[in-house]
């Protein structure tokens, strides 16, 4: 196992991985977001009480829904791409095209969802 790290954090941040790197970072952020959301959501519905109710108020606000829906949808769609490419390794040659397809699926779906969430949120 590579336990030594030869690259400093500053160098790491300057790494320009372009498209694949962006999906990696967003996949990670999305996964962390879902884990934190589901974890606190489970705990709040298990313990209930004052803290649980104030947490539920956050979850039900439309601004938070926009964020958590981004996490869930991106993680799900990027996960499909990773699963397909990993289970059929010959397709790795087309991974850049796969990322374009992924964005072509994600952007319309997410835009529609955001429009619906904002309209519902503003309507009260």
């Amino acid at each position, binding site marked *: 196992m590579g336990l030594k*790290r030869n690259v400093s954090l500053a160098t790491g941040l300057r790494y320009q991985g372009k498209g694949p790197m962006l999906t990696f970072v967003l996949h990670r952020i999305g996964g962390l977001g879902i884990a934190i959301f589901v*974890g606190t959501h*489970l705990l709040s519905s*298990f313990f209930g009480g004052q803290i649980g109710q104030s947490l539920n108020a956050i979850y039900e606000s439309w601004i938070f*829904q926009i964020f958590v829906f981004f996490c869930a949808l991106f993680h799900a769609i990027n996960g499909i791409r990773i*699963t397909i490419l*990993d289970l059929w*390794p*010959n397709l790795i040659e087309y991974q850049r095209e796969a990322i374009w397809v992924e964005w072509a699926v994600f952007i319309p779906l997410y835009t529609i969802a955001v429009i619906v969430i904002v309209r*519902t949120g503003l309507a009260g």
Partner: protein
Amino acid sequence: MKSRTLPLGKRGLNFEMLMWIFTRLSALGMYALILIGVIGALVMGARTQMNMADVIRWGFMPNGSHVQNTNVQDLAPWVSPFWKLSGSALVLLAVSHGVHGLVVIADDYIVSPMGRQIVRLISIVTMVAMSGIALYIVWTA
């Protein structure tokens, strides 16, 4: 450029490899369960009474208390053992998939063998506790 892959027999079979394939397969399982939740919502009248947020919420976790918060007329179809079982399956897949994901992330930043050992210990405790809490909520809600 042709991609190079080893035949199955030449690949090592260890815990990391098993968790790698489990992450992919559990993702496929969760897609199936989410699809079942959304189709179930549509079958039970989501077309006429529901908005998109509710359908999504049921897709991700179709249990009684989620459905109760929406203005569905008849709650009975949603608290059947079928939905509790599919909810349990979704919860178990999600918790193990998620906790393993957190371990992978932690391994990128915690590199000492001792630290990784501690992360694994914490992750196992978290996994068991979260699974228990989630199953309790699914079966009592």
